[in-house]
Every structure is written in C-alpha cells, then in structure tokens.
C-alpha cells in the first residue's frame, strides 16, 4: 500500500474512535459505539499488517494469539464488581507493552554493528516510554492488588516516603538524561525501566483503596499521552489522535472525581487519606441517644404503604452485592403499585458510574436511575427513601461551610426532605470521609442495622408474608 493510502486508513480508524466516543454519550447507542471503536482498532491493525515495514509475521501472530486469549478469558470471567481493577490491569499491560516495544527498537539498533548512534527522536521517545510505561505498569498492578484485596487497601505510609520518592524521581531524570545525551548502550534504558517501576509502586502504595479509581483514571490519561508521543515518533496519526482522545478522557474523569469529592488531585495523591478514624467523642455528640433503629418488618410496612419510594445506593450495596436483592425488592413494590426510583449520586461507590453498572447488571432499567440534579427537587414529594449502604453522599454536614469537614461543599442528595428515611448499614461507623452523619439522628430517620444484602432479603420476605 502507498504511504498516503496507509495514512488515509489510519485517519479513518481515528474517525471511528471519535464516533465511538460520541456514541458513548447515550446508553441506547453506547453498546454499538464500543463495537465501532473495536472496528477502528481492527482497521488500524490490518492496515499496519499490510504496511511494507513488516517483514516477519511469526512473532506477531504468536503475540496476537497469546494476548487475545489472555485478554478474552480474563475479561469474560471477571464479575461486574471487579471492573475497576480489571481496567487497571489492562491499562498496565498497555503501558508495559509500549515500554517493551521501544526497548526492542533500541536493542535492535545497538545490535546492528553498522549503527553506532541512535537518533535523538528514538532516544527521547525511549526515555518517555520507559518512564510512563513502567510507572503505569507497576502502579496499575498495585492498584489492582489493593482493589482485589491482595494487599492491604489502607494507605501504606513509609517513613520519609517523600524523600525516597524524590530521590527516585531525581534518579529517573538522571537516567533519562544519560539515555538521551550519550546513548551508547541500552543499559540506561533498562535501569530507567527498573527505577520507574519502583517509583510506580511507591507512588501508589500510600494512596487509600478508595482513591484507587482516581489513580487508575490518571494512569489511563498518562497512557493516552504516551500513545500520542509514540505516534509522534512513528509519525502515525491513528496513534496521535487516539492517544489524545484517551488523554482527554482520563483527564476529564479524574477531574470529575476530584471535583465531586471536593478534593484536589494533590490531596488525593499525597495526603494518604483513608487512615483517619472519626473521633468517638465527636460522633457521640452527634448521635447521643437520638438514633432510632427499626426492623425489616417495620421497614416492609412503611415501604408498602408508600406511594413514592426512592432508593439511594452507596458503596455498601456494592460491598454486600445487594443489587440483585434490590432488583427483586423493586419488582415486588411495583407489583403493589408503589412508584420506585433510584437516586444516583455522581460519586456514590468508588468509581464514576459505579452504581449504574451494578444496578444495570441486576437488570434495573436505566430510565429509573435519576441523576442528582434531576431528583433533588423531588424529594419533598417522596414518602420513603431507602438508603442502602450510602453515607457521605447523603451527609447534611456537606452543606456547611466548615473547612474542617472533609466533604464541605460537596453537593449531596437531599434525602432529609422526604417524609421518612430508612438507612441500611451495619453500624454507625462512618463512610469514606470518616465523619459522623447527622442524618442518622434526624427525626424522620430510622436505622436498619444489618448487612445490606441480608436487610434487603429480609424486607422482601416480610413483604411476601404481609
């Protein structure tokens, strides 16, 4: 194929990626949009294989088969709840791949006896790929391990960690300099890979498990930028455009998460949040004998007497895997003529859109899932709000201007305006932000202390027996 035709087809692949992302803006078209993206990728791969530059196919075919098998099996078998860590793994693999590929180019250049120097473009891109690729690889795997529960998800705060990380970063810069300025062997490259790999681990270890989605999204953003830089080296528009699209996506999702949590990126990356426990004294003051608890039977009576019920799911529903029970509960209530809707806070759970995926998995139609801005004005007309494992996203303290409250200024779901609120959680212990929640002591609030899944099933049984 002529170079112009190749480039034209790469452009077509890039346009398919854009169309794919555009189709992601609506749930009706999103699924086909993903297929369009896959088509774009297929086109890019086929064009590359037909391009003149490829002379040997054995390694490629072996790699394609091995990678496809691994990717397909892992993606097919993973449960819906493991999505964040799965994205992390695949993203890490992608980052690692570009680092290794650049390493191979470098080794090949050095193994070629005739060539004794490396072009500036290659050495520059090698340094960038080593840095970003290795950090993405190890950082993503630490994120995976934390979310999967393989290692402690709490922040691991090494003494003098800022000092160690600073020294490592300086080392990386020095190695990159060596690689770019006097590239006489691949040693600098592999040392750089090693140093960046360690740095990736050390940077992610001190971040709490709950902040992992932000980290994953940020690493996703990096790998997009890395792909674009790689495309610059290869002068390949498909890589450049796809890379910057991904970079933008990662950046925006990171920004949305930080904004919705009302924290800066610096705070997430360096503050080691997630270790603070709420002072017992403080929570005593808030709750002090004013908390009323209830039973599944009473909850069932309240719910079946209501005309309008809104369910507010939170992280606890994900932990307890209660979404299937919630689906059955919705069906049962609807059979009795109760209007059931869901209120989804933008940062409920632990990643953007977390609750939507779980509820969709359980078969709840997406037109029942209401965004915060849409449902907040309606809570006054709601008879019963059923809060399932959510805490921070319904905490009225967020409305205060007090800077000592970590979630101050974060918009919340105004469930306290409903006639009555039933809150399902196991104890009075705080949520992600580590602060007590005055809602639990409100006049119209009833606590149902139990595991979310058990509570939902018990309510369901009670409803059936009524």
């Amino acid at each position, binding site marked *: 194929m002529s170079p112009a035709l190749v480039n034209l087809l790469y452009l077509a692949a890039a346009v398919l*990626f*854009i169309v794919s*992302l555009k189709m*992601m803006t*609506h*749930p009706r078209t*999103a699924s086909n949009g*993903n297929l369009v*993206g*896959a088509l*774009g*990728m297929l086109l890019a791969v086929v064009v590359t294989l037909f391009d003149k*530059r*490829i002379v*040997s196919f054995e*390694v490629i075919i*072996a*790699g394609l088969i*091995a*990678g*496809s098998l*691994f*990717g*397909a099996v892992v*993606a*097919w078998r993973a449960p*819906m709840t493991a999505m964040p860590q799965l994205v992390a*793994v*695949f993203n890490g693999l*992608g980052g690692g*791949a570009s680092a*290794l*590929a650049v390493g*191979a180019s470098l*080794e090949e250049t050095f*193994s070629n006896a005739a060539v004794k120097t490396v072009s500036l473009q290659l050495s520059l891109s090698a340094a960038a790929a080593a840095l970003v690729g290795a950090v993405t690889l190890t950082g993503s795997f630490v994120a995976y391990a934390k979310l999967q529960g393989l290692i402690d998800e709490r922040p691991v705060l090494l003494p003098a960690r800022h000092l160690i990380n600073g020294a490592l970063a300086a080392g990386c810069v020095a190695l990159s300099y060596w690689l770019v300025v006097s590239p006489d062997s691949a040693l600098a490259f592999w040392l750089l890979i090693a140093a960046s790999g360690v740095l990736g681990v050390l940077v992610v270890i001190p971040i709490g498990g709950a902040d992992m989605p932000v980290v*994953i999204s940020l690493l*996703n953003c990096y*790998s997009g930028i890395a*792909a674009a830089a*790689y495309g610059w080296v*290869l002068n390949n528009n498909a*890589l*450049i455009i796809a*890379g910057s*699209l*991904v*970079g*933008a*996506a990662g950046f925006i999702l990171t920004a*949305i998460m930080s904004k919705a949590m009302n924290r800066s990126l610096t705070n997430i990356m360096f503050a080691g949040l997630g270790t603070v426990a709420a002072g017992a004294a403080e929570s005593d003051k808030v709750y002090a004998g004013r908390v009323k608890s209830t039973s599944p039977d009473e909850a069932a009576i309240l719910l079946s007497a209501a005309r309008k019920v809104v369910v507010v799911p939170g992280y606890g529903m994900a932990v307890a895997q209660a979404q299937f029970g919630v689906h059955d509960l919705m069906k049962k209530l609807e059979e009795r003529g109760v209007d059931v809707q869901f209120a989804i806070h933008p940062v409920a759970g632990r*990643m953007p*859109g*977390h609750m*939507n*995926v779980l509820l969709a*998995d359980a*078969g709840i139609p*997406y037109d029942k*899932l209401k965004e915060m801005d849409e449902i907040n004005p309606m809570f006054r007309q709601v008879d019963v709000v059923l809060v399932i494992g959510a805490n921070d996203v319904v905490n009225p303290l967020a409305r205060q201007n007090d800077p000592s409250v970590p979630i101050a200024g974060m918009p919340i779901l105004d469930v306290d305006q409903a006639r009555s609120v039933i809150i399902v959680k196991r104890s009075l212990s705080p949520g992600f932000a580590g602060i007590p929640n005055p809602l639990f002591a409100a006049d119209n609030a009833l606590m149902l202390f139990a595991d979310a899944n058990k509570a939902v099933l018990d309510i369901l049984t009670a409803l059936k027996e009524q």
Partner: protein
Amino acid sequence: MEESVAALTAFVLALFVGYEVITKVPPLLHTPLMSGANAISGITLVGTLITAGMKLTLLTTILGFLAVAMATANVVGGFLITHRMLQKFHRK
C-alpha cells in the same frame, strides 16, 4: 520539523474533540467510558506490531512477542469488558 507541526496539529485538535465529546458523556456511562477509553489506548498495539515485525536477535524477538501480547490483551480485554458492561444497560 514540518511533519512535527502536522503531528502537533492533529494532537491539539484531537484534544479539543476529546474534551468536547467526553464532557457530554452522562455519569450513567462513566464506568464504561473509562474502560472503553482504556481499550482505545491499546492503539499502541500498532506500534508494537511495527517493532515486532522486524525481528532480529533473540532478545528483541522475545521483547517484541511480549509487547504484542500485552498490547493485544489490553485491546481485546478492554473492548470485551466494555461490551459486557454495556450489554447490561437497557430500558424498561
């Protein structure tokens, strides 16, 4: 240099496109968006193919194989989990 400016042009324009399109994705779809974008970032596969296609020594062959396999896993796995997730979304 000319080529680099053309590359930069594509990069900058694609950043604008990405920003405009992605800010329109509703929160409902943020998780699939994240994994779909990750699948697209597997475009580095194209780069690894070019590298692996010129095998020379044993070392570069191994490196090339690993790179292709890892990038393919990213692409295939990425699109597949996105597909599985999106299959779950439906209207009443």
